């Protein structure tokens, strides 16, 4: 369980990192942030990059800031830092709650928020959060900077819209006034989710005005459960609305089964997680007013 030989660079600017990525493209150069996914893959020799470009020393990537109503998290912000950040708690409590489900504290001490999104594991927590929050990802490549919406970003298991010559430098979350909930079912504490559900909901006069619901573990990418959103938006908050959203959100799902749960069990679990998340988010939305 040791990686094959690779070269290692530790640039100090984004521009240098992008240049190194271009320079070593033929060597299958890969970007390293917290290393909690890439390094195990290298140890298993499932990933064999010839060149690893470490972002650790790149200036300015380790900050969390609030800018124009957006929460901006840099590419080297560790999950544990985000989990404890007052800015995250204020602007994206859904993210804060989800971070508590990401593996174990020692892993969160090293793993990064952006790295988890970039890795795009279909069972991971943070891609679902990004999708629910309509996050935007900033990618920098030889042609400059561009923004990619979460909806466009996730394309398949471990596959994203990021170009091979691009580096994700930050993720931007718009705050969502209302209630939130992140509910996860995993085999054991700290394990990958079998199913995880992220819910945001806003109420006015006891009615659901707006919501965002996303789930991981139900397909090759995190899924936005728009049918569930439509099913309960406009209704009076309560068990009937939740029933409708659960039924709509899980109708027609056909997740692939795996070792940890077959397809039918996965849907059973999704229904349970979705119901709990909708209930909790609704309660919190009611509490906020």
């Amino acid at each position: 369980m040791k990686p094959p030989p690779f070269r290692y660079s530790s640039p100090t600017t984004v521009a240098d990192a992008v240049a190194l990525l271009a320079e070593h493209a033929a060597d299958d150069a890969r970007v390293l942030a917290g290393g909690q996914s890439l390094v195990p893959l290298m140890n298993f020799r499932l990933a064999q990059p010839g060149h690893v470009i470490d972002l650790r020393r790149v200036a300015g990537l380790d900050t969390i800031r609030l800018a124009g109503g957006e929460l901006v998290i840099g590419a080297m912000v560790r999950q544990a830092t985000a989990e404890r950040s007052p800015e995250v708690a204020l602007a994206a409590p859904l993210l804060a709650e989800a971070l508590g489900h990401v593996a174990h504290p020692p892993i969160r001490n090293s793993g990064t928020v952006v790295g988890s999104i970039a890795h795009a594991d279909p069972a991971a927590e943070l891609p679902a959060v990004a999708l629910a929050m309509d996050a935007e990802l900033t990618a920098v490549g030889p042609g400059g900077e561009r923004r990619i919406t979460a909806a466009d970003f996730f394309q398949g298991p471990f596959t994203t819209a990021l170009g091979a010559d691009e580096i994700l430098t930050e993720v931007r979350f718009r705050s969502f006034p209302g209630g939130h909930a992140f509910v996860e079912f995993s085999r054991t504490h700290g394990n990958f989710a079998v199913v995880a559900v992220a819910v945001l909901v806003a109420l006015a006069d006891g009615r659901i005005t707006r919501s965002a619901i996303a789930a991981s573990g139900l397909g090759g990418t995190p899924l936005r459960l728009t049918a569930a959103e439509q099913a309960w938006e406009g209704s009076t908050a309560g068990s009937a609305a939740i029933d409708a959203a659960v039924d709509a959100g899980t109708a027609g799902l056909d997740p692939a089964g795996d070792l940890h749960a077959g397809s039918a069990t996965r849907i059973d679990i999704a229904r349970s997680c979705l119901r709990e998340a909708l209930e909790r988010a609704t309660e919190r939305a009611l509490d906020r007013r």
Partner: protein
Amino acid sequence: MTTTARPPAPPVRSHPENRKWVGKSIRRVEDPKFLRGRGGYIADLVRPGTLHAAVLRSPHAHARIVSIDTDAAAALDGVYAVVTGAQAAELTEPLPDFGPDPAKHTWRCLAVDKVRYVGEGVAVVVADDRYLAEDALALIDVDYDPLPPVVDPERALDAGAPLVHEALGSNLAYERTFDFGDVDADFAAADLVVRDRLRWHRSGGQPLETVGAIADFDPSTGQLTAHTNSLSFTSYLFMVANTLRIPANKLDIHQVPAGGSFGSKLFVTKPLVLAAMCSRLVGRPVVYLEDRVDNISNCDHHGSDRVYDVRLAVTRDGRIRGIDIDTVDDYGAYIQFGVGHHGNALAQVTGPYTIDSVRYRVRAALTNKNQQGAYRGFGSEVNNWMLEQMVDKAARELGMDPVQIRRRNFIRPDQFPYFIPTGNVYDSGNYDAVLDQALEIGEYDRWRAEQTQAREEGRYLGVGLIAAQERSVFSATEFWFWFDEPGAPVTSMPESVTLNVDATGGITATLYSCAFWGNSPETMVAQLVAEEFDCDPHDVSIIYHGSQGGLPATGPGGSRTTVMLAGAVEGASAKIKRKARRAASELMEVDPDDLEWFDGGYQVRGVPEQRKTLGDIAIALHLFKHSFPEDVESGLEESQVFDHPYTTMPSADRKDLGVFYPFMGHACHVPVVEVDIATGEVRILAYAAVHDCGTLVNPRSLAGHIVGGTAQGIGTALYEEFVYDDTGQLITSSFLDYSIPTAMEVPHLRIGHVETPSPYTPHGIKGGGEGGRMMAPAALNAAVNDALAPLGVRVTELPMTPDRLRAAIRAAGVVTGGR
């Protein structure tokens, strides 16, 4: 029942009262070194200049090896040797194998003509470091011709199934049916016959440090010195010497703390043989330390993997008369320990109950999987689970309470020593006392009330209750009584201790078998020595003697260590005291018979001011020998080889297997669970465990065993499984997919102890190393079944994963479940 003529039991011992140290909770003497990172594991012992070996694993479940091209690997800079299985077969003999007819399923350190499971070693590379060694593995080109795999153990026995070993002619490595007592009559007389089919899937111990060995062959002397964290069968090391073609007196094995064994490091010879073969080949020290994938896929220590068809003969009033067990056990591709796992089962096959007859049919199936070895319980835990499942089912069918049916069938305290139908003896016990305490600390009645309340709220709470046996101190007859031709008389399974009292009176104990396996041998010996000599256990020094020139020792296994070490300490102490008494009598010029041992020295009876401490005596014996008569030698050092205190031969017709696991512990576990019927999730709300392992040496370390074993039992019950798919691929080859309970899944345990001393062991001690895992799977299954009883659901397959629970609940008509 007919009376069987049996060899007499050993004399009943009287145990000393007012013990000072035995029975006292002390901090383990091993802890400081492990907590400070000074345990000295294999990876800590690798010195600069040592070469590293890595093994190329088969990606196929079953394939013929057409050719292997190692040229590119051998040409890599920093690579010293590449050895294929065919070349290894020239350099070594087959690995030690206790299975039936090993010539028909030859087991070697690397596969030769074909691979028989995913992960089986095909070649080994020796290089400057492990990175380079793995780079070289990637350059080895093996041409495989895939063969159809055999995965399901029952299908493996079908005519026409592909053969794992052609020489065997079938995949049935062993089959036999034993009848103990009059099974047919008991079934004919039964009011009710309870039947079930049960499935226990394979899991295994997961050590923090995997198995490893550092071997250093010295060509000038022909001596092989090795450090390894396995090999408990120290007395059987000559078998490894044979594999390596090294004279046994040129093999010196040094003990290394296991870093976790749980059975899984029991006599693991393969890494040692690989490292030793490579060291001899390249003339340099070589380390082979499995990585996690090596360990999971190729450790030779997967646990039991059984299908059961069972019948229980019961009377209307709940008396269990007979049991008829038919089991197929999936042994994987080899069968190194034979069906010893079923010997473990037969040691306590009838549990704590007065069941009169047993039919036991076992079929050992070979399949394309890593082979079975040892895992905490060694197959007896599976029997416990099966029996308790059947007892619960009988109770359900009879409308009896689970407590009531157990009390109805318990062996009573006045019936011990009690011979079960297989011929094994239970030395002592008090099962009602254990049950009473478990009901109390488990708050059984309160939880039953909560359960009633919860059911009204639509919640599924379950209370499990099991009462089961915890055999200890095995005799090796269980490995060969399967065959009509005994290979040997009763083996004695010795364990040795040397005690040395230095000139200051300080005591050093030398141990001869394995280092730390979790069984705290150093703490046990320190406490037992302190008990004998009235010193502080933390002042006793403990060292290990390597195998070369060492006294006979068998090492851990079958929860034997503490009892055997206690016997050795007792004997060596008596010899020390005999010499010390005589020396004291010479020094004080009094008759030895007038002396008594008191508080660390000998004093004249009735004249306490006239005394010599052990230190006074020791300095005289070390420095002033000429003060003593001619026949007194200098120094104060004595050894004791302690042999198994109670084991007897099986009868020639195998109607009686003799005594082979006599010191019988007992436990009652009471877990409370809540099952989410919508998701199949099981949450443990409370857990009580009461054990009776005879006299306690260190309650604190026994509690650690109970907690650790129960945690592993929770894994077996709910999470852990080595899963091979239909093509024989191992799909749980890392901890990403092989789920282990974390501290978050293991509840706080309420632990209770009952002490029923053994009449046959020093202090009345019984072994207690495996108890938690021997109870928890059965207890949790019982709790889940109790929770789901209102739905009419019984779960009969472990582990109880969300998929399996949901399938059972769905089949009962709860389609999506929940609110």
